[in-house]
């Protein structure tokens, strides 16, 4: 009798690779007293006024569903905020949807636009979820590599080389996770002309937009003729230190947003109500907290970049987010070997660059959203570890 076991899983899910970060997390969590530079979230607790607003909403009995697209008051605030900060205008009635984190917004956006077999360009090194979500939606993720010699900035020619008749969309993450690279207005304009020429849709993930340190941020849909073909993705997790609240949003052309709401209403219904009340407070009175956190991130970025340079590792100066992406090729180790040995010998957790795609090989991602005390100690330990390989 054949012993081949029947599987109940769908082929798509079976073929989905587990996240490389997951494997590394399991290793790190078996050890004690690890200094972690592996976290992709702020080390600040959500600003107190935001927490208070949520308490207040609960006291008032706001515990029921909201509209599928999210509370209209919140959508109005988001709309006002996008207009005043990034010069993009969206109608809160029908061009905005509040989601369970930016992650849900990415999923909805891709499911709303992809037909089976469509190709979606993913700029690498990239956030680990983009490609799997494209596959889950029935599309094919097509990577485009960026290079440290361009400070990991996407070159428009590279997109053009990758485009086929099946290419439907491109996912941009600006500022980028994991490299921290920020694309400026001029660079976005060049990308926009390719996007227009080949009639593509852009998923612009701008979750780190508030956290840019050296120059003013340009939102992709604010570029001429891009608003009608861009789905802007953002949320409250990073700028307002609200990762656990799971609240994000998407803004875009009415037709696409309405399609996204259709999927959302069957699967999620609506985002958590108390979190939406908190988010209104974050947008209306959160500016000071964001400014303070941003200042602290900028200082820590300087500290970490200087420290890597002192160790003799090359590291471009990231303009945004809270990651640095130094090269570890000097040590002769692969990024996984480096991360694993560093963890075992010095108990510092960093994320190997290869989990963010092929072009991340030879790099590690270090989050500097950690207390100064921890950062100082971590840098000492990494320096000691690296010096072993330079003898």
């Amino acid at each position, binding site marked *: 009798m054949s012993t081949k076991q029947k599987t109940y899983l769908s082929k798509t899910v079976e073929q989905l690779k587990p996240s490389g*970060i997951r494997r590394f*997390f399991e290793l790190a*969590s078996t050890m004690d007293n690890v200094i972690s530079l592996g976290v992709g979230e702020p080390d600040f*607790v959500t600003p107190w006024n935001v927490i208070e607003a949520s308490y207040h909403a609960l006291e008032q009995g706001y515990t029921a569903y909201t509209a599928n697209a999210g509370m209209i008051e919140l959508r109005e605030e988001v709309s006002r905020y996008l207009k005043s900060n990034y010069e993009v205008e969206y109608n809160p009635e029908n061009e905005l949807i509040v989601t369970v984190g930016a992650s849900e917004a990415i999923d909805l956006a891709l499911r709303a636009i992809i037909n089976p077999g469509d190709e979606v360009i993913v700029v690498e090194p990239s956030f680990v979820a983009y490609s799997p979500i494209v596959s889950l939606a029935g599309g094919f993720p097509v990577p485009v590599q960026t290079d440290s010699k361009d400070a990991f900035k996407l070159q428009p020619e590279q997109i053009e080389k990758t485009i086929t008749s099946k290419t439907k969309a491109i996912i941009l993450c600006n500022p980028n996770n994991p490299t921290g690279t920020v694309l400026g207005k001029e660079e976005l304009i060049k990308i926009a002309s390719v996007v227009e020429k080949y009639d593509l849709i852009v998923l612009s993930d701008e979750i780190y937009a508030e956290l840019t340190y050296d120059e003013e941020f340009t939102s992709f849909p604010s570029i001429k003729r891009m608003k009608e073909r861009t789905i802007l993705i953002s949320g409250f997790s990073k700028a307002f230190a609200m990762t656990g609240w799971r609240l994000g949003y998407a803004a875009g052309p009415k037709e696409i947003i309405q399609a996204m709401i259709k999927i959302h209403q069957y699967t999620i219904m609506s985002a958590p109500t108390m979190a939406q009340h908190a988010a209104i407070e974050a947008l209306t009175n959160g500016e000071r907290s964001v400014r303070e956190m941003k200042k602290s991130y900028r200082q820590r970025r300087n500290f970490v970049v200087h420290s890597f340079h002192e160790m003799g590792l090359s590291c471009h100066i990231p303009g945004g987010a809270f990651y640095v992406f130094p090269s570890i090729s000097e040590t002769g180790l692969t990024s996984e070997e480096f991360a694993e040995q560093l963890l075992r010998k010095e108990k510092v*957790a960093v*994320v190997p660059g290869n989990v963010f795609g092929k072009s991340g090989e030879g790099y590690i991602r270090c989050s500097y959203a950690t207390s100064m005390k921890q950062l100082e100690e971590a840098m000492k330990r990494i320096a000691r570890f690296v010096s072993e390989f330079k003898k």
Partner: protein
Amino acid sequence: MVLEKKEIEFLELLEKNGRMEVETLAKLLDMDVKEIEKMMDKLEKEKIILGYSAIVDWAKVLDYEGVTAMIDVKVTPKRGVGFDKVAERIYRFPEVKAVYLMSGAYDLSVSVQGRTMSEIGRFVSEKLSTLDSVISTTTHFILKKYKHDGVIFDHEEDDRRIVVTP
């Protein structure tokens, strides 16, 4: 005196942690060590930085008796010098930790530290109340400190994040 943006950032960092190493400060502010030292010298000379001290939770130190009182003081201002002369006579006492001129129901807010309540009581009745400009005093003893100078007492800020996240 108008300070540069970097100088203000530097002061904010020091105010949060006066023990920060010069090398660390230099990296944080993207400057070199010499520049930092120069800035420090200048701010000390200008008396913008007045001192470096620690915030201590004395309540945790066994056998260390200490009481703090806030005293509301009403005074008759002296002609020509206003409140300043009275304030000076008060702040010269070593047991006085702080003196503020206030608006409202009373004039001066005086913070006094002593070993026992009776020691503070003696200070108030014998030294403070007997000053001829002082009309009245109201003494409030501090029972417990929750937050002082922006620092929350007895509060561990645990990092509740998991070790590695996507």
